[in-house]
């Protein structure tokens, strides 16, 4: 089998001004993942490194560049899975950690699949992950603008619109959210 590293940088109504940055980022992530696979021979290393490179890139909705909750905060989540053993590491409600995917991989060392909330943050501290201080350093201006635009849509009563990117929208029935 010929080795392959395949990445995505998110699906949605991506504004045209974000296209170039996303293409540069996914190509870089694929290269980084492939180089890691060549270096260590470990597919888990490859996918973790590819995702880490995109968590650093503000063009992507992960890590630095994450979109915001209704209260203007970053809450992240990640998962990683090993096809040989079906072991998985998952985390959610992660705050102020640059690389949630690495935290998810660390969860694989516990007897559990999934940690979230206060527990995963406590686990992160015990495992030596840097908790960024002061809080909120992962919030970007772009994400703030996207949230303001979303709030404006809410105020106008356009509750059927959900926006994940500035200038974009996904229309759903009025009963739906997200």
């Amino acid at each position, binding site marked *: *089998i*010929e*080795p*392959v590293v*395949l*990445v*995505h*940088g*998110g*699906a*949605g*109504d*991506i504004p045209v001004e974000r*296209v170039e940055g*996303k*293409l540069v980022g*996914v*190509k870089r*992530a*694929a290269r980084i*993942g492939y180089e890691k*696979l060549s270096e260590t021979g470990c*597919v*888990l290393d*490859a*996918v*973790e490194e*590819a995702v880490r490179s*995109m968590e650093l890139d503000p063009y992507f909705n*992960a890590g630095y*560049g*994450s*979109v*915001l*909750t*209704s209260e203007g905060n*970053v809450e*992240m*989540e*990640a*998962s*990683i*899975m*090993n*096809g*040989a053993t079906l072991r998985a590491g*998952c985390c*959610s*409600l992660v705050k102020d950690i640059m690389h949630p995917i690495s935290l998810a991989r660390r969860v694989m060392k516990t007897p559990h*699949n*999934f940690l979230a909330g206060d527990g995963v943050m406590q686990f992160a501290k015990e495992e030596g992950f840097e908790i960024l201080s002061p809080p909120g350093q992962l919030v970007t201006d772009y*994400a703030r603008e996207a*949230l303001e635009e979303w709030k404006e849509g809410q105020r106008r009563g356009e509750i059927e619109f*959900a*926006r994940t990117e500035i200038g974009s929208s*996904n229309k*759903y029935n009025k009963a*739906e*959210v*997200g």
Partner: protein
Amino acid sequence: TVGAVAIDANGNIAVATSTGGITGKLPGRVGDTPLVGAGTYADNRVGGVSTTGHGETIMKYCLAHDILKRIDFLGENAQTATEKACKAMTDRLIGTAGAITIDSQGRVGISFTSQRMAWAYIKGSTIAYGIEQNQHHEEAL
């Protein structure tokens, strides 16, 4: 959301997915990304999938699992399974999404029902990438 799927020369597969979620979400909202079978799945015997898009839709459909079950039980290849699963999900639930897949034979599947999805892969000495529907560029490394 961002994600990666990899396969080595021995057929070992791994998948990783990470996200900040969706703008304006309620605090405490959990999406598809950390859910095995929805945002991520890897099984050396079948393939690996990472998904992205409207999380509430992907979760209800268990999109990653659906793609791999199509490969496993219907004999579809990675591309066919990914296309059909994404389309069936959107037809049923309206919300849009995309997925990347590598099957156990090392074949690639890329499909999305949203307007755009950024993707790239390296196989051999070639890098392929795209973002628009039906777009596929290749360059020599």
